[in-house]
């Protein structure tokens, strides 16, 4: 199991970034287009942090990763076990108006991401039933 509060290599401050009026989709570009939200890589971070707040020790850490030719080894917060045989697609959920915070919590108040809900089948089915979405097995399992 993942820790519910995974320790990330960089103490990325969602709070700060969102306060600067960035959108979730600025970095997680895939979220409205396809299955995965996408975690930005070190080059993307350094696109801004080449000039912004370069003295911050966390940002120095990012710069060091880049200098070594390495990406930031983010720790996954949510993941499905392969034995669940489940396919989750972000995009239709976003289109259906499910707020990111439903599963990921209110990021304007959080630093790093945490597990907000227990993503078991009951959680999914409950919401699908509530919103009158199909709960046929092959909606998610294939």
């Amino acid at each position, binding site marked *: 199991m993942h820790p519910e509060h995974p320790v990330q290599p960089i103490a990325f401050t969602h709070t700060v970034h969102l306060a600067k009026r960035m959108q979730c989709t600025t970095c997680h570009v895939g979220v409205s287009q396809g299955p995965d939200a996408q975690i930005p890589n070190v080059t993307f971070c350094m696109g801004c942090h080449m000039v912004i707040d370069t003295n911050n020790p966390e940002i120095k850490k990012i710069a060091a990763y880049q200098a070594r030719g390495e990406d930031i080894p983010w720790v996954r917060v949510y993941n499905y076990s*392969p*034995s*669940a*045989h*489940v*396919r989750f*697609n972000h*995009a*239709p959920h976003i*289109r259906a108006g499910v707020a990111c915070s439903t599963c990921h919590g209110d990021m304007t108040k959080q630093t790093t991401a945490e597990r907000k809900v227990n993503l078991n089948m009951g959680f999914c089915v409950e919401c699908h039933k509530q919103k009158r979405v*199909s709960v*046929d*097995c*092959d*909606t998610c*399992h*294939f």
Partner: protein
Amino acid sequence: MAHKWGLVVDLDRCTGCEACVVACHAENNVPTVGKDQAAIGRAMQWIRVERSWEGDFPNPKVRFQPVLCQQCDAAPCEAVCPTYASYHTEEGLNGQAYNRCIGTRFCANACPYTVRSFNFFNPSWQKPLNLQLNPDVSVRSVGIMEKCTFCVQRIKSAEIQAEAEKRDLKDGELTTACAQSCASKALVFGDLNDPNSEVSRLASSNRAAKLMGELGTKPNVTYLDRGAWQDAKNS
């Protein structure tokens, strides 16, 4: 209107090239089992090309016939599964919920077409062959029964796309991997509920027949008889 997916196999077009078999391996992460396992009858194919012989030299005759899950409306596999791993989906497919499968293999025995493949072992893809795996399809582990899904991942993604664009699915917009690869167009996939789709048109041909139709399984795969040179004008 709900979809009802169907496939037509034109036996007169099928050349037995087995491009569909490899397409299915690639699309659906169907493993290869190796020589030793294949030797004891454990090769896994969601679609196979059966060949039958008749006659002898100098007049032998051969027929090729692709056999895949017939996606029966009255499927013998579904009733027997104690855990609902085999079940009827809302779109009329014979679904297989891998996570729910406990491996009784009852469905495979009940299936008259023997189109179900069982994972006798964990499948292995020696690195880096694992990189070929289609991320849209789960990799089934040991003890799980699997079978042709009519490329449900393609259906789902096409439906999600159509929903995003707020339109209906078009005929031909979506096809299975086997039908996609079939050079002689022996395999045609589509929505049987759409009377104008190619698959509906072909399925109502007077060459149409169901595989072991007398068993009453009501398959959604239709075979078009091969016919002969002289018969062509009648079809």
